[in-house]
């Protein structure tokens, strides 16, 4: 039973795709770690929703090698990312930067949430106001209304 469970578990566990080839890996684990970190945030331009870290496209490989070369040459993480965005634009960043052109992208959802919250608040207040305006307690029935109500009640009894 245990073995069966384990087998099922293993079968259902997605195996992490390894695109980084052994010959690309840097001997220095610290540098390699930084390279992995950077490449996870860089978009592969051929298969656009993958990062270069998990894409098998030849261009992704070239860019991974490039990232490692820049790091070995002593670039900081930011400098490496700059080097790539200078050539391919902000589009290669899987996390879009926060700037004027992407302002709506970043704050749009919050703006819409705020509009919704304000709208709801106004609506609820309006409803409460309407109830108060109606006299809090219901206004007494007029003579005419009382007669119609009596008639209806009598009909029900009959």
């Amino acid at each position: 039973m245990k073995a069966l469970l384990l087998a099922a578990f293993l079968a259902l566990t997605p195996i992490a795709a390894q695109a980084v080839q052994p010959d690309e890996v840097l001997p220095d684990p610290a540098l390699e770690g930084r390279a992995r970190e950077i490449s996870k945030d860089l978009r592969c331009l051929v298969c656009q929703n993958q990062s270069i870290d998990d894409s098998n496209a030849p261009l992704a490989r070239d860019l991974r090698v490039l990232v490692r070369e820049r790091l070995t040459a002593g670039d900081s993480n930011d400098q490496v990312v700059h080097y790539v965005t200078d050539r391919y634009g902000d589009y290669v960043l899987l996390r879009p930067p926060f700037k004027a052109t992407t302002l709506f992208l970043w704050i749009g959802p919050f703006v819409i949430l705020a509009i919704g919250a304000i709208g709801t608040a106004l609506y609820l207040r309006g409803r409460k106001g309407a109830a108060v305006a109606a006299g809090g307690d219901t206004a007494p029935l007029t003579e005419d209304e009382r007669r119609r109500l009596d008639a209806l009640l009598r009909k029900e009894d009959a």
Partner: protein
Amino acid sequence: MRRLIFLLPLLLFVGVGVAFFLGFERDPRDIPSALIDKPVPDFALPALAGHKEGLSSPMLKGDVTLVNVFASWCIPCKAEHPVITRLSKELGVTVRGINYKDKTEDAVDWLRRNGDPYASVGADLDGRVSIDWGVYGVPETYLVDRQGRIRFKQVGPLTPQVVEEQLLPMIKHLRAAS
């Protein structure tokens, strides 16, 4: 009148729907180039066998030049080749090539079979220079002005329509400008 406010979410939804629907028309492969209006990268490529000259940044100054990135293994390159050839042979545009990640003998053979419209071809064996140009898929074509600045980029094959409607007017304009 007050009721109309209840139509607002519907109108909003329709608006967003239309915006997304129009988005289908856009080609996701068409990525805005980061290099438009920037000088060409600093580079020098050796000549492909059979050509006297390769390609380097100083060569792109002085004349309006079309730089075409191609490879013998690239099918769309073959499709666009007649368009490139016409630009070079009939319309008198200086066309220079970057041969992207190709085997030399394959590239030479390909040019012999399909015709060679290039004034010079630089061989980019490891694709490194092409990365400096922001190439992410062949074919790509760049229009460089007299000052050596990139003014236009086409990703994917050049079509007669792009040539007529965008490229030729731009070449005319750039030639007149300086």
